[in-house]
């Protein structure tokens, strides 16, 4: 009885999720296998749009670029985030709350404002290039924007908190004495890190990487603003197809491809963490 009463607590959120998340998603899948003629959707079953996607080198190229961008952003966030998370997990400094706010600060700024901020820094006549050129250190500005680099920088900036928070939680739970035990047993600090801390933080690395990767491959505003349409990613194709070309079925198929990649990643994540966690928890 009590258990059933408790299930009621889940009802509002389940309803919300059902109406505004699951239903549209199912609709999208349905649209992706339907036909459209003269703006009218015909509820049939066809894999035509998927076939079109996977037979066109252009779309495959965009998919590849999207995944590469996701990988770059994920690896960069991990490399920047790990030391930061390690410090946050271990420090007893009274500045810790401030540091935490600083880590979270990118999330407190609106996405468009954040992008314009990066433009001011990265543009050809932006702060960095202007300084370098005016001082005569460079003849012409560095290509910092309207390319993959600029997009990646801005994405790392906003997704770093997800990586850091995922890692901090896991690193905090590692007994610092385990590291010391490894050292007294003859492991150098580097070896002790590789043998103890790193494997024990694997769940956090995977969780953070998964989050960042999924967010990065589905980002739209940042690639548009800092890529200046020179960097093509899948969400932009979806946007284009749905809102400019009005080819809803093909747009939906694109979106579904993106979704399947995310789901596949989550499945792999669960598999791997289950194995990594065998001894832990």
């Amino acid at each position, binding site marked *: 009885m009590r258990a059933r009463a408790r299930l009621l607590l889940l009802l509002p959120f389940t309803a919300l999720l059902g109406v505004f998340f699951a239903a549209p998603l199912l609709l999208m899948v349905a649209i992706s296998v339907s036909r459209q003629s003269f703006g009218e959707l015909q509820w049939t079953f066809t894999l035509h749009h998927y076939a079109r996607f996977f037979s066109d080198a252009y779309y495959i190229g965009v998919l590849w670029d999207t995944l590469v961008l996701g990988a770059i952003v994920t690896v960069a966030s991990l490399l920047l985030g790990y030391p930061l998370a390690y410090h946050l997990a271990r420090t007893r400094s009274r500045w810790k709350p401030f540091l935490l706010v600083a880590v979270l600060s990118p999330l407190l700024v609106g996405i468009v404002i954040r992008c314009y901020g990066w433009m001011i820094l990265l543009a050809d006549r932006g702060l960095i290039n202007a300084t370098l050129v005016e001082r005569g250190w460079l003849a012409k500005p560095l290509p910092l924007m309207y390319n993959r680099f600029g997009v990646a920088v801005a994405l790392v900036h906003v997704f770093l908190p997800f990586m850091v928070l995922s890692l901090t939680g896991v690193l905090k739970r590692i*007994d610092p*004495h*385990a590291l*010391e*035990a*490894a*050292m*007294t*047993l*003859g*492991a*150098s*600090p580097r*070896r*002790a890190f590789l*043998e*103890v801390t790193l*494997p*024990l933080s694997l769940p956090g690395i995977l969780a953070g990487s998964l989050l960042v990767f999924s967010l990065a491959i589905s980002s739209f505003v940042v690639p548009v603003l800092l890529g200046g349409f020179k960097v093509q990613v899948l969400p932009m194709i979806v946007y284009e197809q749905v809102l400019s070309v009005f080819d809803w079925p093909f747009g939906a198929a694109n979106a579904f491809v993106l979704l399947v990649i995310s789901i596949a990643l989550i499945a792999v994540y669960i598999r791997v963490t289950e194995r*990594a966690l*065998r*001894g*832990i*928890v």
Partner: protein
Amino acid sequence: MDRALEQGASLSEARAADVSLRGLEKRYGATRALAGVSLDVAPGEFFTLLGPSGCGKTTSLRAVAGFVAPDAGDVLIRGARVNAVPPHRRHVGLVFQSYALFPHRTVRQNVAFGLRMQRTARVEIERLVADALALVQLPGHGERYPRELSGGEQQRVALARALVTRPAVLLLDEPLGALDKKLRDHMKIELKRLQRDVGVTTIYVTHDQEEALTMSDRLAVMRAGHIEQVGAPREIYETPGTVFVAGFIGNTNLLAGRSRGGAAVECAGVTIATAASAPAAGAPVTIAVRPERIRLDDTGRLDNEVAATVAHVVYQGETVRYLLAADGGLELQAVELGRVRFPAGSRVRAGWAAADARVLLS
């Protein structure tokens, strides 16, 4: 440790090392964690650092392991100064209260870790790990993960892991602190047996005086970053050198008074005959008398006797503790074995021998 010994000998044949601390000092901001700690631990000795939290016992232990760099003073292992030697080259074994086993590794992998770091041959590792697990009475547990073991079993794995590399010194940081009382009592005996069998020099840190008294060959009572007294358990218990030691180890009647010269001290109007001669007359001193040395309504002649009222009776099962209010204002505790002889409110004569009254400088 030399190569032949490391490879050939079984655990019990490792040559024990001596450890010395010379004037160790360590400051953390305004706190002096170590204020000149010096001690010598003999090869094969079970040496305990005993004291309340914050007394510097763990800091001293960590200085031996190499995790604390002293501001001044030296750490010597086998007579060699090791201050500049990093922890992974000191060849010490360390066991924590939290066990600190590697949760992602099996028991066998945990125990093999140190051997793997020493690049011991695989066959040799197999054999030594099996020996070590047998030594701590956990054979056949090798493929389990730490979380599948009880607290006591985890602690024994931690011991096996620390001992399997035949360390120069075994450092134990409150290793029994996380166990329940029954298991702790069992592990106390087990640990002591293991230490004697292996013959490894051991430094044991605890705040539990009972552990210190039952397990140690010698112990050092620490307080506020320095050593108050070093000695064998009986010595520390029976002849405490300071008021702090007398109060920290066991229950003690501490009576403040003034020396009357000779072997007599006046406490609250009562003159008490003491073991050793008190300092110059008029000096403030404290007398320490163990509660179990106080006799109630004894028929024999005792050097000191006061009339008292039983204020409170604490029944403790095998012992009975009486809180006594002596005429003249002294408060005493007495402990007896067995049944309750005096109910609260009874009048008794409390007496003790002069030899049992230790004079301590206040």
